[in-house]
């Protein structure tokens, strides 16, 4: 009987160890992701969450970034609404979609994608800590400057173009989307 108890205990211990191992990733590091947080992120990727016929997604596809936005990420994506694209000088958007202008489009698109998940609250805290402004690194190698206009967060590109976050914190499995009213270029 004693032997049987010991065997069961050993088996339970092994199972527990196995469970621990499952919580480690391929690089041998602890996977500290919590289940609640995973649920909060939903079950859709950024690519799936963007408007299928929207101009931003079409531009992302033209730049070859659709797989990126469907990949593991995570990224913070500043998405201009279609009205923002419509406000661009005539022909700008259509020119971006031409294959010969892909490099230019790529530069625009990668400068509205930030590394990691940056929620509006995180930007707000960084602005407060930075005495009124926060500099955010982009995947294109540039920066955006965040400031506050009342309760709203305003993003300014290196070229001085401004966009106000109109809808913040759209959460997805591989990042977060902030919607803005104009295109940062």
């Amino acid at each position, binding site marked *: 009987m004693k032997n049987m108890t010991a065997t069961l205990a050993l088996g339970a211990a092994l199972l527990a160890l196995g469970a621990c191992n499952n919580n480690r990733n391929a*690089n041998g590091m602890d*996977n500290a*992701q*919590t289940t609640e*947080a995973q649920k909060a992120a939903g079950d859709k990727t950024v690519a799936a969450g963007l408007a299928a016929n929207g101009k931003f997604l079409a531009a992302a596809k033209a730049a070859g970034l659709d797989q990126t936005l469907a990949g593991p990420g995570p990224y913070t994506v500043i998405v201009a609404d279609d009205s923002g694209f419509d406000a661009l000088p005539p022909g700008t958007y259509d020119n971006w979609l031409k294959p*010969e202008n*892909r490099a230019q489009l790529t*530069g625009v698109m990668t400068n509205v994608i930030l*590394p*990691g998940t940056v929620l509006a609250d995180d930007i707000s805290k960084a602005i407060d800590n930075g005495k009124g402004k926060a500099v955010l690194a982009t995947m294109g190698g540039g920066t955006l400057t965040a400031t506050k206009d009342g309760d709203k967060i305003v993003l300014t590109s290196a070229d001085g173009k401004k966009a106000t976050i109109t809808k913040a914190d759209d959460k997805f499995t591989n990042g977060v989307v902030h919607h803005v009213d104009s295109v940062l270029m």
Partner: protein
Amino acid sequence: MTKLFLAAGVAALAIAVPAAAGPGGQGGSRGGGGKADRAQVDRGGARATARFDRQSARPDRQILRSDRQTSRADRQTSRADRQTLRAERPIRAERVARAQNRQIDRQAIRADRQTMRADRQAIRAGRIDNRSARIDNRASRNLQNGTVFAGDSGWGQAKGRGFIEGCPPGLYMKNNGCLPPGQAKKLIGSVLPAAIVSSSMPIALSSLYPDTANSYYRYNDGYMYRVDRGSNLVNALLPLLGGGYLPGQYLPSNYMSSYVPSAYSSFYPNNQSQCTRYANGVIYYVDCRSGLIENFMPLYDNGYGVGQMLPSSYGYYNLPQQYRDLYYNSADTGYWYAPGAIYQYDQRTSLITSVAALLSPGMSIGQRLPTGYNAYNVPLGYRDTYYDTPDNWYRYSNGNIYQVNPATQLVTALVASALT
């Protein structure tokens, strides 16, 4: 010997003269005789003395004469020597003449060499002309027949081994109907060759270059062709290879002062043996001395992206460790990492079909927190575990979560991988 005897004689006389003259003079003056006697004696003594003096001076003159003769002989000797030397001068002149002759010979040889070099250059130029003509002929045959090397009668097979289906291996691998490199550009404004008409875009890229009512797209030799349906002429050509300069070309001198942006300088170090330069979104590896491009690395942010062709030197797997479980090569698809992105490419054509992931310049332990990371950016699933405190911040970069010291702003540890 004569000189010796003369000298001995002179010496004997010199000794005898004082001995004879001294007592006489003294005795005369001290003897005390009459005035006349004394005068006679004096006159007689003086004459004798003068005669004796003349006699004794005679050998001196002989000595002087002998000396003069000796020096004359010496002068004659030296004159003879000078004449001898003078006689030797023609030999030196001969030498000079010989040296001049040699110089003339060398000049002649040099002239010959220059002539030979010019001949060789002419022959080489002829070869290049012939080669160009051959390439033009081949291209024109390509245009007419669609393919040249395919078929039993192709010169490739006739010429010998190493050809695949009648096509040189290098061209065969391009799978472009054996169109030689560089000929593609000549096709703008012309009818698309039959070989290219059937060379459709890679499936992965066809969605990016959809055919329309007015035009359609074809791929060949690293270029994407847009063809007008009405005229059936090529009206646009998109080079799918990043950058405008290729290995083997010279980087324009104004780009030699265009250094790699600081964000990429650790990836592409510049040193004495290998110069790295940056132009139009492309990093060039340049031979520091000659300015010749040895390799290039297009960057994603400006000029490198979907639809472009990976350079042939990118034939190995180089993904960062933390991404290898997510993106691994298969028979159809390959992945390539370059600063800024992980690219997915078509194994057959080497064309980039997608950007699998965007990567930032990254963080490393001990490094200062890069600009733009003051905002908390840890993925949602990890926020319960890694949240900012007065002692530690946590920041995400390229699949990893790093710990940062808020006071020093230094990255202190890598605490988790967020790629699962």
